[in-house]
């Protein structure tokens, strides 16, 4: 799971959960994978990202230092775009859990794929 995905993901599909956001990451294995840098894509994503959730996620997986505190004001600064690219696209949570902040329900992550399946009586 990339942090760009985490930034969008919520557990609000669980019955009774209001926001379910951001999910807590309890990682046991985190890798970084090379992904082609596409500055235009990152520029387009920045306004959509929830920055505080991103900071939180980066902290959960030990990459907090890689990320500026605020979303960049200057979208042309390629260095900053690269740092953001690294955190949202290249950092990959391979193994661990996601945890619903409200119900504490855990969703296992295996081979980089979070299992978000719910029981019929959870929905």
């Amino acid at each position, binding site marked *: 799971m990339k942090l760009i995905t985490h930034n969008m*993901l919520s557990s609000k599909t669980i019955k009774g959960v209001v926001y379910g956001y951001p999910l807590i990451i309890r990682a046991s294995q985190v890798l970084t994978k090379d992904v082609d840098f*596409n500055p235009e894509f990152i520029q*387009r994503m920045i306004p959509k990202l929830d920055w505080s959730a991103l900071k939180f996620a980066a902290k959960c997986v030990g990459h907090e230092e890689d990320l500026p505190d605020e979303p960049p004001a200057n979208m042309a600064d390629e260095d900053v775009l690269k740092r953001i690219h690294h955190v949202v696209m290249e950092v990959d949570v391979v193994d661990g859990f996601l945890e619903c902040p409200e119900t504490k329900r855990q969703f296992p992550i295996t081979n980089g794929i979070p299992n978000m399946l719910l029981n019929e009586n959870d929905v």
Partner: protein
Amino acid sequence: MGKMTARRPEHQSPPDIFYNEEEAQKYTRNTRIMDVQSQCSVRALELLALPPDQPSILLDLGCGSGLSGEAITEQGHFWVGLDISQAMLDVALERSAEGDMLLSDLGHGVPFRPAMFDGAAQNSACRASAEEARTAAVRQHREQQRQADEQQRRRLLALWERQQTLVENRKREREQAARKSRGSRAVFQFYPESDQQVSLIVKQATKAGFTGGVVVDYPNSTKAKKLYLVLMCGGSAPLPQGLQDEGVPEAAYNRRLQLKKGVRTTAAIREKIRQKKERRMKQGKQVHRDSKYTGRPRSSRF
């Protein structure tokens, strides 16, 4: 739209059971399945009508083995995929799919906050999940049937919520109106059970604030006929035309498949040879006469 096409295999069991390892392997070995899958995805992308030369982020509903995702990646976009079948996702991992994937049941809604995606596409997973409820209902007792109805209702509601997500998207886009507003779209390829189901789905979508409708490709072919529900929000674009089948429909469909994938069947090769011979004859050159061996695969001894 008269009678719907033959019963689909997913009728037999719910999607997570139907798409088991054996079925999933077909998405790496069976070229017919793979071609159809890629073909549908390319068409769905066409129908999404994304702004040209702009990398988008897309949601692949029922991303399965990652073939549909491959088509998205090839066009320079990033995708996040959902699927209910671990076996299918395992195939996607083997294939080193470039999108990010989640194991998740679409029938339970989409676990994302709104306004994130530029578009969404779904490849025939819709009917399979509706089917899950139905199969259960037929097989079991009354009590269970009631539960299944409830499940069905929730699934429709979930579909509606999914649409809401896109409606939110539209609002947000309007707020960010500085940029040229382009509506985001969702494309669902599906196999409806009845005409009523089609109109129900369209009615729901309209209620949720969408424009759009159903695009039918190859309407006269039992095999190639495909329905795409195209939902648009923001901006107003005409509904795209369905692809037409002139003359022999299966042939038109197969030809398109071959063109897209560069698949070379004996028939396609023969046709190429024939055209080439014709050209050369026109140029006054000598050509071999056609025989039953023309364009046929040869043994390595030849």
